[in-house]
C-alpha cells in the first residue's frame, strides 16, 4: 500500500470514528430526553385516571384510546387492581346479601316477578307485612363488576314515597306507582288496601289499569280541584283511628293488630302534582297527614309535588335520561325501574281483586254473622255494643253506653231503616239476655213494623226483650209521651236506688246491688218527629220529657234510639240543641241528610243500598264508619233468631205490652176490667183505654157525691155506644145479680142495636135491665126524680139501691121533656135535672149520650154544669168544651175513634181515650 493510500485509509477511519461519536453523543442526549418524557406521560396519565377514578375513566370516551395503549397498561392494571380491592367487600357479598334480604322480607307479590302472581288475589291477612316492596334493580356504576341487585322501598306502616320526575321521565313515575300499587294490592286479601288517587292534571286517566278497582270501592279517584277533600278525608281517618282504634295506649294500628289479622285497612293516597308547590295551607295539611298517617295505616305516594315532610319518606328521582336514583340505595347506585306490567294483564288483575273483594264482602255479612257464638253471654253493666254490619268483612259495631248514650237514625223511605233496626235489635238481643237489656219500641207510622216483636196470629213467638211494642201509633202522639214518661219515671226509680247505695250510675249500682235486676233500657221511637208535630200540649210535654231522659238517662242505663225518615223531623230537632247534643251516635242511611254534621259530612248522600254510616262522634266526619247492613228482615233471619230467643226465655216472663193504634182494645182483655169485682161501695166505670204504657183504662169512680154522672158528647152512635157499653158492663161486673138496676133509654133508632146488645150482655150477667124508649122517658125521669126527692127529704121507705140510667141521645127527647105538666107546671127537663143533681148521692147515676155540647148544656140548668163530673167528647171542637173543663181542652181537635176524657174530680188536664170493643155484636 502506498503512503497516500495509507493516509486516505486513516482519514476514512477517523471520519467514521467521528461519525460514531457524533451519533452516540446525540443518541445519549435524545434517549435521556425521550425516556424522561415517557415517564412523565405515564405519571400524568395516572393522575388523570386516578384523579377522576378508574371507574369513570373507563367510561370516558376521551380516555378510550389512551387506556388501550401498551405503555399505560401497567398503570391501568394497577388502578384496576386497587379498584377491585376497594370494592372487594361489596363485590363479594353485597348484591347477594341484598337479593337474599329482599327475598326474605318481601315474599310473593312484594318482590317476585309478575308472572308468578299478577292476576291472583292475595291472601295475606295483614298479620305480617312485607318490609320492602320491589321497584326495580340497581347497579353500582363505580363498582368493578356491575352485578344487578333488587331495589325495594319500605311502604306500609313504615314510610311514605316521594317520586320526582322530569317531563321526559314522568311516564316512568306512572309505571313505578302502578307497579308498586299492584304489588301491594295483590299481596293482601282484597279490601285490606284502599287506594285514593288525586291528579292535579286530570279528572280521570291516572293509573287507568287500576280502574276496575273502583267498583269494589278499593280505588277512589278524586277531583283535581279538590285536594283539600282528599286531605280532609285522610285527616278524618287519622282522627277516627286515634279515637276508636288507638285506645289502651297503643301507638299505631300495627301495634293494635299485633301479630293478628289486620283489622284496619291501609289507605294509600297517590298524589300526582305538576312540580309546582302546593298552597301553603294544603302543604301544611299534607305534612300533618304525613306526620300522623303512618301510625294510622296511611301511606302517601307523592309524585312531582315539592314537599318536605317530617316523617320517614323515601325518594325516587327519575332523570330525563330514564335512569333513576333512590334514597334507599344512595348516590352510587343507578336504579333501573321494573318495566310496567303488561298492559293487558293489569286491568284483568284488578278486576279479579275487585271480584274477590265483592265475594268476600258478601261472604262476611249475613245476618247470621252478626250473631255471637253463644247467646246471651254479655253483660250490659257498662253499656251495650253489638255489630250492625260489615265494612270490608270487618264488623262495624254500634254501642250505647255512658259516653254514647243515645242514637239518632236518619233514612228516607226505602233506605233500609227497618232493616237496620232489625239488624241492630237482633244483634243486641242475641248478645244480652232479657235481664241485661229491655226494649221499648214504638213506630208512629206504618213505615217500620215492630209488630214482629209482639205475639202475632201467624207467629206466636215474641221477642223476650221487648217490654212494650207500639205500632201504628199515628196520631196518638200521647203514646209517645206516655213512653217518655214511663222512661222518666224508671230513670227516677233507678236514680233513687242508686242514691240509696250512695252511687250515681247504673254501672256502680249494679256493682253495689249484684242481685238486683237492672237491665239497660233501649227505647226505639221510629218517626219520632211526629211527637213534635204540632204546637200543643203533647209537643211541650214530649220536649220536656225527652230532654229529661236524654240528659239524665245515660247514667241510669236508659238509651233512646230515635229514627226519622223525614228531614223535617231532624230539622225540628235541630232547634232543641240541648236534646240533640246528647245523641252522639248517628246513623245515616243512604240519602239521609242532616243526620250527620253536614255540610262537612255528607258521606251518606252517595251511600249505596244496604249501607249505613255509623258515627259515634256526633256526626263529625272523622267518626264515619261505613257499614254494609245484612238483610235482617227476610225469612229465616230475625224471625228465626226471635223464635230461638223465645224458646230460651224464662217461662214466667210476661208478654210485651202491645199498643196498636189501628186496633180497638177489647174491654174484656184489659187488666183493669179483670180486676173489677162486686163489693166495692164506690163502683168504678171504665170508659175506654187511656194512652199509656200499661194500657190502663180510663176510670171514673162513682162515689155517692154530687156530680158523679158521665156524659158522652159526640154525633156518632158507634163512639157513644162503645163508651156507654163499657161503662155499663164494667159497673155490672161490680154488682151481684139483681143488686143493681140498669135502665137503658134508647131515644134514637140508630142506638137501638147498641142498646139491645148492652141489655143482653147485662142480662146475661144476671142484672135487672129495663129498656125504655121515647114513649117512656118522661115517666122514667119523673118517677126517678120523685124517688130521689123522697130520699132526700127523708120520706123514702127503703135505702137507695144502685140505679144506673144509660141514656142514648138524651137531646132527642128535649122537645118532649120541655113540655110542662099542666098540673104541677114541672117539665120533664126539670126531672132530668133533678136526677142529675141529686141522683149520685142516692146511688143513681146517669151515663148519658148527648149529640152536641150545646145540647148537653140545654139539659143542664143554665150556666151550671157541675152535675156532669166526667165526660168523654168525640167529634166536637175543643173550644166548645171550655165550659166543662180546663183550658187545655182548647187544644183538642177531633180524630176518628178517639175521645177526650176529663173527670173534674180527678184530673188537672184531659186525657185521650180509645173506646173499647165491648164484645160480640148481636147477631
Amino acid at each position: 500500500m502506498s503512503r497516500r493510500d495509507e493516509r486516505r485509509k486513516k482519514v476514512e477511519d477517523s471520519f467514521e470514528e467521528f461519525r460514531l461519536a457524533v451519533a452516540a453523543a446525540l443518541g445519549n442526549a435524545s434517549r435521556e430526553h425521550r425516556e424522561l418524557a415517557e415517564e412523565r406521560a405515564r405519571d400524568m396519565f395516572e393522575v388523570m385516571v386516578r384523579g377522576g377514578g378508574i371507574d369513570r375513566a373507563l367510561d370516558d370516551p376521551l380516555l378510550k384510546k389512551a387506556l388501550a395503549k401498551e405503555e399505560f397498561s401497567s398503570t391501568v392494571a394497577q388502578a384496576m387492581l386497587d379498584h377491585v380491592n376497594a370494592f372487594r367487600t361489596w363485590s363479594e357479598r353485597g348484591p347477594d346479601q341484598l337479593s337474599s334480604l329482599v327475598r326474605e322480607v318481601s315474599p310473593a307479590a312484594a318482590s317476585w316477578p309478575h308472572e308468578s302472581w299478577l292476576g291472583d288475589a292475595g291472601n295475606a291477612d295483614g298479620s305480617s307485612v312485607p318490609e320492602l316492596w320491589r321497584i326495580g334493580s340497581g347497579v353500582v356504576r363505580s363498582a368493578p363488576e356491575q352485578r344487578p341487585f333488587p331495589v325495594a322501598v319500605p311502604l306500609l306502616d313504615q314510610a311514605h314515597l316521594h317520586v320526582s320526575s322530569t317531563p321526559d321521565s314522568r311516564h316512568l313515575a306512572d309505571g313505578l306507582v302502578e307497579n308498586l300499587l299492584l304489588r301491594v294490592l295483590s299481596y293482601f286479601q282484597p279490601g285490606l288496601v284502599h287506594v285514593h288517587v288525586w291528579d292535579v292534571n286530570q279528572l280521570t286517566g291516572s293509573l287507568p289499569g287500576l280502574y276496575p278497582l273502583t267498583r269494589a270501592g278499593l280505588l277512589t279517584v278524586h277531583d283535581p280541584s279538590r285536594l283539600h277533600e282528599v286531605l280532609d278525608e285522610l285527616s278524618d281517618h287519622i282522627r277516627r283511628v286515634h279515637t276508636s282504634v288507638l285506645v289502651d295506649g297503643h301507638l299505631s294500628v300495627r301495634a293494635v293488630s299485633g301479630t293478628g289479622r289486620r283489622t284496619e285497612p291501609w289507605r294509600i293516597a297517590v298524589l300526582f302534582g305538576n312540580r309546582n308547590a302546593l298552597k301553603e295551607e294544603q302543604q301544611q295539611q299534607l305534612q300533618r297527614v304525613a306526620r300522623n298517617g303512618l301510625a294510622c295505616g296511611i301511606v302517601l305516594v307523592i309524585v312531582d309535588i315539592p314537599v318536605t315532610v317530617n316523617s320517614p319518606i323515601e325518594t325516587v328521582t327519575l332523570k330525563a335520561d330514564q335512569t333513576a336514583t333512590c334514597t334507599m340505595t344512595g348516590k352510587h347506585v343507578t336504579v333501573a325501574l321494573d318495566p310496567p306490567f303488561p298492559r293487558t294483564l293489569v286491568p284483568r288483575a284488578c278486576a279479579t281483586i275487585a271480584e274477590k273483594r265483592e265475594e268476600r264482602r258478601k261472604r262476611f255479612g249475613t245476618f247470621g254473622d252478626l250473631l255471637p257464638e253463644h247467646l246471651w253471654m254479655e253483660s250490659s253493666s257498662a253499656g251495650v255494643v253489638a255489630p250492625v254490619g260489615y265494612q270490608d268483612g270487618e264488623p262495624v259495631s254500634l254501642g250505647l253506653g255512658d259516653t254514647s248514650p243515645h242514637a239518632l237514625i236518619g233514612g228516607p223511605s226505602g233506605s233500609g231503616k227497618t232493616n237496620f233496626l232489625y239488624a241492630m235489635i237482633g244483634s243486641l238481643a242475641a248478645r244480652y239476655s232479657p235481664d241485661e237489656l229491655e226494649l221499648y219500641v214504638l213506630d208512629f207510622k206504618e213505615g217500620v213494623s215492630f209488630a214482629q216483636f209482639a205475639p202475632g196470629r201467624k207467629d206466636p213467638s215474641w221477642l223476650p226483650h221487648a217490654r212494650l211494642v207500639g205500632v201504628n201509633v199515628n196520631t196518638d202522639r200521647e203514646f209517645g209521651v206516655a213512653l217518655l214518661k214511663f222512661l222518666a219515671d224508671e230513670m227516677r226509680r233507678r236514680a233513687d236506688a242508686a242514691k240509696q247505695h250512695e252511687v250515681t250510675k247504673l254501672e256502680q249500682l249494679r256493682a253495689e246491688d249484684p242481685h238486683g235486676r237492672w237491665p239497660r233500657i233501649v227505647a226505639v221511637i221510629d218517626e219520632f218527629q211526629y211527637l213534635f208535630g204540632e204546637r200543643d200540649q203533647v209537643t211541650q210535654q214530649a220536649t220536656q220529657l225527652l230532654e229529661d231522659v236524654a240528659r239524665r238517662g245515660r247514667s241510669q242505663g236508659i238509651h233512646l234510639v230515635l229514627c226519622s225518615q223525614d228531614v223535617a223531623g231532624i230539622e225540628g230537632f235541630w232547634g232543641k240543641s240541648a236534646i240533640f247534643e246528647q245523641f252522639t251516635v248517628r246513623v245515616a242511611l243512604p240519602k239521609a241528610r242532616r243526620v250527620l254534621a253536614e255540610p262537612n259530612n255528607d258521606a251518606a248522600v252517595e251511600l249505596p243500598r244496604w249501607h249505613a254510616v255509623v258515627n259515634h262522634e256526633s256526626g263529625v266526619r272523622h267518626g264515619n264508619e261505613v257499614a254494609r247492613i245484612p238483610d235482617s228482615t227476610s225469612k229465616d233471619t230475625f224471625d228465626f233468631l226471635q223464635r230461638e230467643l223465645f224458646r230460651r226465655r224464662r217461662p214466667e216472663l210476661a208478654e210485651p205490652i202491645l199498643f196498636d193504634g189501628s186496633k180497638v182494645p177489647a174491654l174484656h182483655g184489659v187488666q183493669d176490667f179483670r180486676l173489677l169485682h162486686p163489693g166495692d161501695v164506690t163502683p168504678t166505670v171504665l170508659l175506654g183505654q187511656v194512652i199509656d204504657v200499661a194500657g190502663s183504662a180510663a176510670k171514673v169512680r162513682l162515689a155517692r157525691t154530687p156530680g158523679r154522672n158521665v156524659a158522652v158528647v159526640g154525633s156518632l152512635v158507634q163512639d157513644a155506644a162503645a163508651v156507654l157499653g163499657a161503662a155499663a158492663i164494667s159497673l155490672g161486673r161490680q154488682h151481684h145479680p139483681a143488686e143493681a138496676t140498669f135502665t137503658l133509654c134508647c131515644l134514637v133508632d140508630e142506638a137501638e142495636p147498641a142498646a139491645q146488645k148492652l141489655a143482653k150482655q147485662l142480662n146475661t150477667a144476671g142484672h135487672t135491665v129495663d129498656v125504655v124508649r121515647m114513649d117512656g122517658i118522661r115517666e122514667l125521669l119523673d118517677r126517678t126524680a120523685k124517688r130521689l126527692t123522697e130520699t132526700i127529704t127523708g120520706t123514702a121507705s127503703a135505702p137507695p139501691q144502685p140505679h144506673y140510667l144509660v141514656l142514648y141521645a138524651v137531646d132527642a127527647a128535649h122537645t118532649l121533656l120541655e113540655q110542662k105538666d099542666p098540673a104541677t107546671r114541672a117539665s120533664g127537663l126539670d126531672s132530668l135535672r133533678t136526677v142529675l143533681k141529686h141522683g149520685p148521692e142516692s146511688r143513681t147515676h146517669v151515663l148519658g149520650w148527648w149529640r152536641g155540647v150545646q145540647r148537653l148544656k140545654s139539659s143542664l140548668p143554665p150556666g151550671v154544669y157541675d152535675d156532669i163530673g166526667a165526660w168523654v167528647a168525640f167529634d166536637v171542637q175543643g173550644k166548645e168544651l171550655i165550659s166543662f173543663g180546663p183550658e187545655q181542652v182548647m187544644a183538642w181537635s177531633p180524630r176518628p175513634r178517639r175521645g177526650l176524657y176529663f173527670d173534674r174530680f180527678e184530673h188537672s188536664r184531659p186525657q185521650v181515650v180509645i173506646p173499647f170493643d165491648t164484645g160480640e155484636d148481636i147477631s
Partner: protein
Amino acid sequence: MNTQSNGTCEFSVVPLQRTGDGHAHVAEPETRSAVERYKEIIGSIGEAVATMRAHDETRVAELMARLAVSQDRMVDAIEREKVVKLGVALHWESAVEALWEERWLRMRPMPQPDERVPARDQNDYDAAMELAFQALEESLQKRSLLRRKKE
C-alpha cells in the same frame, strides 16, 4: 328520621313523633328492620368508593410530586440535548471544512442519534466526540504540513 351525609335516611318503624326519650331504641342485630339492614349493605358501596377515592388521592399526590421533580429534569435534559446538538453541529461543520480538500473522500451525511448506546454521562460522549474530532484532524495533519511547507 335522620338524614345522613350520603342522603339516605335512618328509619324506625315507629314514626318520629311517637318515640319518646325514655323509649330510645337499642338496635339489636336481629331486631333491626329490613330497611336498616338494606341500607347497611348499601353503605358498603359508599365505603368502597371512599376507600378507592382516598387511595387514588394519595397516589395522585405522589405523582404530582414526582412530576414536579421530573419537570426540572426534563428542562435539564432538553437543555442538554440542545447543547449537544449545537456542539455536534460545530464539530461537524469543522470536520466538513477540514475534509473539503480531500476530494477523493466520499462524503457521508451527519449520522442519526444512536439511542442504543449505553446510558452514560453526556460529558463522556461529548469528550469522546471531541477526541474523535481531534483524531480526524490529526489524520489530515501531514498533508497540511507539507502543503504549508510548499507555500
